[in-house]
């Protein structure tokens, strides 16, 4: 009985390959959502480094920020439902999903750190004299996440037989 139950929970390779794109998509959406969520809780609420509304924000920035916030809020929930969907189809591919999460989170952070902070002047990372180290760490870590995610996705790209499947 336990064996049967166990077998039902295992992702099978055929299903993984069929839903490969959905694994990547769910990961990217979750990455965007989680990065936005961390940005909101850690930098806005806990550290108070970011400002809710910076007087120098452009109108385009206000609109861009509004849409990005709404999208990432939706994406977090939708991504978790997608993971549930993949699991019930025995098609969840955790490594691929994690790789995509890194790309999504890195992508969001890079967009936030360059376009939204600099171009649209929504707010700065922190209101200090020398902003450069903050910007470098922020955008540098974003780039690192994108690179790491890309390597993971490349190493786990679709092949007819998946080698090294742990389960």
């Amino acid at each position, binding site marked *: 009985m336990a064996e049967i139950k166990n077998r039902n929970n295992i992702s099978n390779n055929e299903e993984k390959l069929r839903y490969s794109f959905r694994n990547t998509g769910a990961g990217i959406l979750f990455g965007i959502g989680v990065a936005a969520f961390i940005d909101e809780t850690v930098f806005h609420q806990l550290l108070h480094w970011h400002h*809710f509304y910076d007087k120098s924000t452009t109108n385009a920035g206000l609109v861009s920020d509004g849409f990005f916030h*709404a999208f990432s809020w*939706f994406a977090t*929930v939708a991504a978790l*439902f997608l993971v549930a969907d993949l699991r019930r189809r025995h098609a969840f591919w955790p490594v691929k999903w994690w790789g995509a999460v890194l790309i999504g989170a890195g992508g969001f952070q890079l967009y936030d750190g360059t376009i939204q902070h600099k171009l649209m002047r929504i707010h700065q990372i922190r209101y200090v004299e020398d902003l450069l180290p903050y910007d470098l760490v922020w955008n540098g870590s974003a780039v690192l996440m994108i690179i790491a995610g890309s390597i993971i996705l490349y190493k786990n790209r679709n092949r007819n037989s998946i080698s090294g499947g742990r389960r």
Partner: protein
Amino acid sequence: MNHAQIANVTTGLPALFLSIGALLIVILYIWAGLRSSRHNRLKVWPWYRYVSFTFGIICAAISVTGPIAALAISNFTMHMVSHLLLGMLAPVLLVLAAPVTLFLRSLPVRKAKFVASLLRSYPVRFITHPIIASLLNIGGLWILYTTSLYSWMHTNLMVHILVHVHIFAAGYVFTVSLIYIDPVPHRLSYIYRSIVLIGALAAHGILSKYIYGHPPKGVGVQEAQTGGKLMYYGGDLIDLVIIVLLCYHWYKNTRPREALA
């Protein structure tokens, strides 16, 4: 007409009538639910719908009568609390209670068919289209907070009543247009409704920040900042419920066929 007279509406005799009306609606709902559950051909009306309806009506009632409503006239933060209750939380709770389904199943078949045909009529279909409903809901809020309507609302009783009726009705229509629990004549795809929801959520968030930076006429800077933040985060929280409901319905609807095997 001045503040004091409008405040009187929220706590005086009209408030008493409103509270009695709210109580009667809840009693009517519970009675209809229990009575229709006795039919053999109908399923028992679920208990959580009674709870949801009761809390929905309570939310709507305390935002227009009693202490919160009285404070909302001169205090922008309290106004925002009542706005979140009346325009967002109450509609979500009421939609979960499926009042139209209950109404239809409480009627004799012929009358129910007539009401159902009304619900399929062009005007109803028009205002329950998600884009129109979003424009009525969020568009209405933009007009309220960026024109002198907000200060006008506090000096003219008729405007005061109309604005509140609109906030509630538009909030309900907006929720109904996205979350299909009651019967819907023309169903739109999940992806379509998701995109509209994201757009409406964004417009709500942008308006909150706009209020933070540009206080409506007659509202102090400090109050506008607290109110704007409350609208932003409170709105996010209630919108989260709508997002989860929409995604959950989507998830259930795309259940793989061979799941029983």
